[in-house]
């Protein structure tokens, strides 16, 4: 009996520790990014890092301004957002409200399938299909452009947007819609005058999490945006994002070099962006309840 009590005591402590593990790992990630990344600012000012216009990490001395990368990420993200919001929210409405039973399950399955495809596979498919298409349509020297990245990333954000927006629509009390229909509104009027406003904070959260997915996406974007670390003048030129820079260059950076520190500093920037997006989205989701 006492052995049992002891065993249970130990197990319950392990359960508590595991419960706290998520907090522990978030802090650990942040600390280790800081540990390696903050060393950069012994030699470079924060403003020179964030606003510097040149990223030449292997010149002598290295130029480590990430403004072109930030703009690259922003451009690709903005493009992806513009594409994915109408399509994603539209699909969410269609699936939640309009599609009949069997079709609904098929469509949901298709979107879950999309979420399951590894990003490197999507990147590969983008390389062999989308990139030549963009090149030919716009008569460009290369199809590896911000636009290609935006389209691909929009596609990758959609499962997130659709599923969370659909949940938001689904969780609206039925009598909202029925009330509108009883007053003689058409189904569409009920959707866009009553359902959409009621689900707005959930849909907003869906969009934010979709954007979060886009900003953090690495492999596909690295494979199809051309990786030119210059300030982009148009959406039809090659760009390089924050994530792609880290992924492409960390392999060559010498541990302890300024280049290495700078890549970790980019990691800090990415971590903070994703932290802000996720916390805000979570607040929106909780507001709904």
């Amino acid at each position, binding site marked *: 009996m006492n052995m049992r009590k002891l065993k*249970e005591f130990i*197990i*319950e402590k392990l*359960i*508590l*520790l*595991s*419960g706290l*593990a*998520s907090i522990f*790992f*978030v802090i650990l*990630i942040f600390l*280790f*990014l800081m*540990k*390696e990344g903050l060393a950069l600012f012994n030699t470079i000012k924060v403003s020179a890092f964030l606003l510097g216009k040149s990223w030449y990490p292997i010149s002598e001395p290295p130029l480590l301004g990430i403004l072109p990368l930030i703009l690259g990420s922003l451009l690709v993200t903005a493009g992806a957002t513009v594409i994915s919001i109408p*399509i*994603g929210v*539209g*699909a969410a409405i*269609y699936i939640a409200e309009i599609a009949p039973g069997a079709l609904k399950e098929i469509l949901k*399955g*298709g*979107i879950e*399938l*999309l979420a*399951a*495809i*590894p*990003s*490197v596979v*999507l990147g*590969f*498919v983008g*390389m062999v299909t989308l990139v030549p298409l963009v090149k030919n349509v716009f008569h460009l020297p290369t199809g590896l452009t911000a636009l290609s990245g935006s389209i691909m990333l929009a596609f990758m954000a*959609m499962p997130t947007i659709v599923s969370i927006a659909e949940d938001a629509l689904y969780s609206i009390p039925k009598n909202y819609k029925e009330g509108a229909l009883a007053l003689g509104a*058409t*189904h*569409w*009027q009920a959707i866009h005058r009553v359902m959409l406003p009621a689900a707005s904070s959930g849909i907003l959260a869906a969009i934010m*999490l979709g954007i*979060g997915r886009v*900003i*953090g996406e*690495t492999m596909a974007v690295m*494979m199809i945006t051309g990786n030119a670390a210059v300030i982009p003048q148009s959406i039809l030129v090659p760009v390089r994002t924050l994530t792609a820079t*880290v*992924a492409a260059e*960390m*392999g060559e950076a010498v541990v302890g070099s300024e280049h290495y520190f700078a890549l970790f500093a980019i*990691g800090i920037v*990415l*971590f903070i962006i*994703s*932290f802000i997006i*996720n*916390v805000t*989205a*979570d607040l929106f989701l909780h507001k709904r309840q």
Partner: protein
Amino acid sequence: MMRNPHRTQRIAFFLLLTATLLIVVPVGYILLVIIQKGLPAISWQFIFDIPRHGMKAGGIFPAIVGTIYLVSGAIAFALPIGLLGAVYLSEYSRDNILTRIIKLAIVNLSGVPSVVYGLFGLALFVVFFKFGASILSGSLTLGIMILPIIITTSREALESVPQSFREVSLSLGASKWQTIRNIVLPNAVPGILTGTILGLGRAAGETAPILFTVAAFYLPQLPGSIFDQAMALPYHLYVISTQVPNVDEKIRYGTAFVLLALVLFMNLVAIIIRYRFRKRKKW
């Protein structure tokens, strides 16, 4: 002029359908392309041979094995912590600030960009713990990455076990842990399994977290221990599609096919388990 609401509705519904098709049709197209061009590349030799001639010929066996090792390691690390963490949230936590912070941490953990996991794994496991670029470092990195998936799905599974079962067990004088161990966990197994398999699928497909923690560009033999580097399928696909010029298209599509088949197979298994569980549910 009065707008006809029914015509507006028809137009709106047509646009919504178009939006949905714009997502679903490309998904079908992607699968079709990869199956059509990848399937012919699949042969006994492609699966079980090592890459040859600078990866322009031969097979992908070391990458398959590497991925299996990495995924197994990740799950061995993440499942116990994730499951116990879910038990904490479902059975022990109260509605307070701490619980709120834990949930927020899980949300954040699932939102951290995959390449940042790569950086973290590099800093902590490769450099700080001096594991080097190794299966161990890669598995641990992937393990932390899939932790939120396992916690979230397991927790849902645990919470779906009716409260009355717990009350009955406790009313018979069973302890809290006995109740969890004998009543709650066994009835949550299908849900936990689903989450675990989804986590496996995610770990198998990720590239960025393993870039600097384990992945070998080209390694003609199989890894011998958890301190060795290893090839991995997603990284191999990245390498032969962007880093090595003039690789036969067939090999690229074949690799993409194997990776996709592996990931989708795991998802399919998860869906089947979930479906059968729902049908069989006794309460």
